[in-house]
């Protein structure tokens, strides 16, 4: 019952939710996207992008690149891509050429196991590896402007393509770790990610309309943040809400969680930069 909700923002939310329930999201594909915003998996569960839980107003901000408050980072990232940095005097473009080609599916595949080291790398780790090892440049700080712009730019090259992380072979142990963390009760409130994002999505928890906690939109512009943020920032936010000790940016815990979440939403379209509330 949404009758209790008062105020303009609340009205918007409840209307959005009501509408969301009436739409068959498996039939909705955004312009230029290869796959729809939801699909039914083998277990008969509907896997839905966070987009499908948001209000029409928030959705509209994402649907129109001119209205998307994070879209400037795509243009900015294109410049950064071909700007030489570091002691080697090289830019990303010197090694990778046109990002539209070389990065066309990269955004669907991370986190990914590094063949050399056997470590699980988030896109941020991979970018910093190129910077320090190939360019002689300083590593970006995880949540820095430079890193956010570069990750938005690179993942945007895969926009509309289905998330397709590998969770077998060398990735299997990381996937199992992520799954265990996702289902583990943590914090003073003693909740697991799964309690909110599997058991109760589609319900209000106070003023928040719970989604499945999918990651296909990241880095995502969040109205509450007033900027884009990484998936690690988002996980840290949820950890804080359940009064848990936040795993550090770039930590193994956050990266295996990121892999598990990506797999839960395998097949959803990359939306970077998505817009959420």
């Amino acid at each position, binding site marked *: 019952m949404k009758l209790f909700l008062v*105020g303009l923002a*609340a009205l918007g939310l409840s209307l959005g939710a009501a509408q969301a329930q009436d739409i068959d999201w498996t039939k909705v594909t955004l312009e230029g996207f290869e796959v729809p915003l939801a699909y039914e998996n083998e277990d008969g569960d509907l896997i839905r992008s966070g987009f499908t839980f948001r209000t029409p107003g928030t959705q509209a901000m994402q649907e129109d690149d001119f209205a998307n408050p994070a879209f400037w980072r795509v243009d900015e990232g294109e410049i950064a891509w071909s700007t030489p940095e570091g002691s080697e005097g090289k830019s990303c473009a010197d090694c990778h050429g046109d990002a539209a080609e070389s990065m066309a599916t990269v955004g669907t595949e991370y986190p990914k196991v590094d063949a050399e080291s056997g470590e699980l790398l988030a896109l941020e780790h991979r970018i910093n590896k190129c910077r320090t090892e190939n360019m002689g440049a300083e590593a970006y700080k995880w949540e820095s402007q430079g890193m956010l712009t570069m990750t938005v730019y690179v993942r945007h090259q895969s926009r509309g393509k289905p998330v397709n992380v590998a969770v077998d072979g060398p990735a299997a142990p990381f996937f199992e770790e992520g799954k265990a963390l996702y289902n583990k*009760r*943590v914090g*003073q*409130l003693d*909740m697991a990610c799964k309690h909110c994002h599997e058991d109760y999505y589609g319900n209000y*928890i*106070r003023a928040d309309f719970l989604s499945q906690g999918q990651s296909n939109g990241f880095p995502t512009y969040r109205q509450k943040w007033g900027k884009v943020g990484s998936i690690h920032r988002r996980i840290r936010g949820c950890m804080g809400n359940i009064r848990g000790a936040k795993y550090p940016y770039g930590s193994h815990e956050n990266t295996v969680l990121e892999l598990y979440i990506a797999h839960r939403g395998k097949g959803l379209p990359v939306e970077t930069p998505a817009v959420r509330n």
Partner: protein
Amino acid sequence: MKTLITALVVATTFAVSASAQDMAYVVNDDDYTIEKSLTGVPGDAGAGQAAFVGRKKGNCLACHAVEQLKDSQLFHGEVGPDLSDVGNSYSAEELRLRIVDYKVINDDVIMPAFFRSTGLSNVGKKFKDKTILSAQEVEDIIAYLLTLKS
């Protein structure tokens, strides 16, 4: 944590150390109650309402709607059952166990244990070894819930 819960369910009555201050309470698992008041001081329904809605206290409204509070300008959640008639459905003793530690009844429940500080992992520094509510706040909320009859 699992062993603690199984132990609770297997034994008929059981004393548990509930918080850093060594507050003991006894769970009666025949009928899922905690008989004895946690403080011996009668609960205050007014203070209980404040603790019920307070985001830094019970924040119960995050998950439970209450008809009687619909004019309060506050958001009501829909994760747990509506509590507008809870005063008719449950006794003080039954409510006490549900607020102290619902996991004794349902080990997969999302509802936090509001008066348990042990058996938790990865607790943030500020909250370590502390229960979410104080013993008196639990008693106050019970008093408030008993007024909810529709």
